[in-house]
């Protein structure tokens, strides 16, 4: 059962990501990405990480994607801009696009190559660890060992907030 769910979720994630990258309308991209996040969240549950699954939905799909949606609608970026014909050389213009795509493929191949020899045992499914204890462990770790990172992250968020406000402020005429 869990295996099947894995394959389903995996397929959904991949297809959704491909479509996010592939299709034209940014609005659709956002929505598809939300779908992808949902699949991933399922995968997290299968991996026995309910906490991560939960915050994935809440933060990623719930907050960040909504933000994206707002911006897309604000900017009325309904469609893709046409090619603008800038210097179509290797170091600029269309060159980076194609070369970049090729590089991505290259990276994928490399990673496969790295993984080909790695034969591991099947992972146990998620119901072996009670969800409550998992969250409890995370919390303990977070506030004991990683307390400083936690506080620093809060400062980071504050900085990002201030930065975003200033960057997006409408300039006084």
């Amino acid at each position: 059962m869990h295996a099947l769910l894995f394959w389903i979720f995996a397929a959904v994630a991949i297809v959704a990501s491909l479509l996010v990258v592939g299709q034209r309308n940014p609005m659709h991209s956002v929505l598809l990405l939300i779908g992808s996040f949902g699949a991933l969240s399922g995968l997290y549950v299968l991996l026995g990480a309910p906490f991560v699954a939960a915050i994935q939905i809440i933060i990623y799909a719930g907050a960040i994607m909504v933000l994206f949606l707002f911006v897309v609608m604000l900017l009325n970026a309904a469609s893709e801009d046409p090619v603008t014909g800038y210097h179509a050389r290797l170091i600029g213009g269309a060159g980076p696009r194609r070369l970049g795509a090729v590089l991505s493929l290259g990276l994928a191949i490399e990673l496969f190559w790295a993984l080909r020899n790695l034969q591991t045992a099947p992972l146990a499914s998620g119901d072996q660890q009670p969800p409550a204890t998992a969250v409890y462990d995370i919390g303990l770790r977070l506030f004991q060992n990683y307390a400083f990172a936690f506080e620093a992250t809060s400062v980071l968020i504050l900085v990002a907030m201030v930065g975003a406000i200033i960057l997006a402020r409408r300039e006084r005429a």
Partner: protein
Amino acid sequence: MLYLIPLLPLAGFVVNATFGRRLSKTVSAAVAVGAMALSFGWSAAAVWRLLHLEPVGGVRSISEVVYSWIVSGRLNIPFELRLDPLAAVMILVITGIGTLIHLYSTAYMHEETDGEYARYFSYLNLFAAFMLVLVLGASFPVMFIGWEGVGLCSYLLIGFWFTKPSAADAGKKAFVVNRIGDFGFVLGMAAIFATFHTLNFQEVAAKVALLPKEETFGLLTGITLLLFLGATGKSAQLPLYVWLPDAMEGPTPVSALIHAATMVTAGVYMIGRNAVLFGHAPHTLDVVAVIGCVTALMAGTIGLVQNDIKRVLAYSTVSQLGYMFLAMGVGAFAGGIFHLYTHAFFKALLFLGSGAVIHALHGEQDLRHMGGLRKDLPITYWTFLIGTLAIAGVPLLSGFFSKDEILWQTYVSGHTILWGVAVLTAFLTATYMFRLLYLAFFGERREAPGHGPQAQASHQATSDHGHGMAGGHGSHLHDAPPAMAIVLVLLAIGSVVAGYVGVPNVIVPGGNRIEAFLEPSFEAPGGVAERVAAAAEQPPEAHNASTEMSLMLVSTFAAFAGIGVATYFFRSKPQAADAVAAQFGGVHRLLLGKYYVDELYDATIVQPIKRISTMALWRGVDAGVIDGTVNAVGLVVRGWSAVLRRAQTGSIRAYAMWFFAGVVFIVGYYVIWR
């Protein structure tokens, strides 16, 4: 407390240099003269103390380490001062005559502005400080500080009126020529350190005394020749004497102090200080004697025809210095110093007297425009006469005793030819000095053409009185003002009596007190006698007496002969002089042109150096190589940057691509290769 002796003038320098412009002339003068007078007092006290010391190893001395200067590995050079008989004579001369000249300057320089006045006195004090360091130094480096310092002050004072091009040039010439000599001195110093591993005079002398005398050209001869090169530069001997006549561009008191009594004697002093070292290199001493003698003769001949009163005295100084070197060269170290001491008196007197003349004539220095000053400037005339008699070697005056001592030592050490030349030079000395006296003070006044108020301006170019003229004074000449007159009288008295400390033993047994006093300074520590030549070979005293007396008669005769010739040509029948000059026109021109030595140096040394510097060094090396290299570096950077900056396309996608390419590469490295 020896260090106070140079420190007091140094303090005077500091005061006048920093506050001079704000001080009145009286205060500046008081500071400067006071510093010198105090230094003289302190020197006298120190010498008094020295005289009452018990000799240690045959030598009386007071040593003092002022502070530890250089301590580096094996090299330990403390700033040490040492007072011994030789230094005692020197400091008394420097501070004593120095104080008098400072006093004289207060009146002579009075027409300068306050600032210039103070500047003059600051330089003069600084010079005195350096000179005192030079003679009190107990080691070569300390002496060298003084050596260089007096060279610097000489430059500053010769070029005191630096707005006049000839004065500025003369200052530069003095400094550059000095430098060539200093080069020899430094090399000599380095060689001494390399050989003896010490630079202290006493230690070097002790080590040298253990060595045998060099019969051939060896290390010691080389070292001493290098040191002597320095001496020729500082003391204006062949070949580096050319700066001294030009140095007359400076104020007359400067000529008196620096270029007569003190700085130019530094070379003589240096040889005396290193008597043991030089004593062990007989060939060098021969060179010294010959150069001294030849220089004396050459300068004497030039002085015979010069028309500028200060030039005559300048060449006379060169000539008398030649005598001193001759003395050092034949081993009569004490004799040379004795002549240094008496010469300081009468040469300073002569220069200051000429200064009084120039001052009275408002800047006229040409002998052909003087005459008949005997009536108008009595004090100047009488003191000048005494100085002239002294330098001519007339008996009973100081110059007679010292010059005679040198002639005697030269003869008795076997250098008969040199003795003959020296006697000839004595004759010439008397001649040209009395020519000077007659032309300036006797006869009728020969005014310069158009010597009225409008011609005063043209005198500015020829005189050493660089200040503005006060307008025509007509025939009303005033003698020296009190400050100057007192000094002239005191120096005249000195010129007469100073020689009595050195009465030859043959006349008054034990009368040559100065030589007895100085003797220990020329010996190596431990009392090893170092008198070259005459000491061992001296025949018994009785035979000496008659020889010495007869030689004395010869030199006296030479002196009077010179006076006689001068009287004939320049007093009785002046036109005879012109006739002789016309008849021996070529010789006359040669002498007047100073043997064209300056022109020779210019053509063979100066011009080629200038050309090489301009063509090769300036255009070739500096502009071409160095600038070229620097510019080339800049061009290379520019070229590369022109190529490399094309990577800044502004396209973020391109940047991202490059990032990513790097990532792929790194991942690939780890995945595929390891």
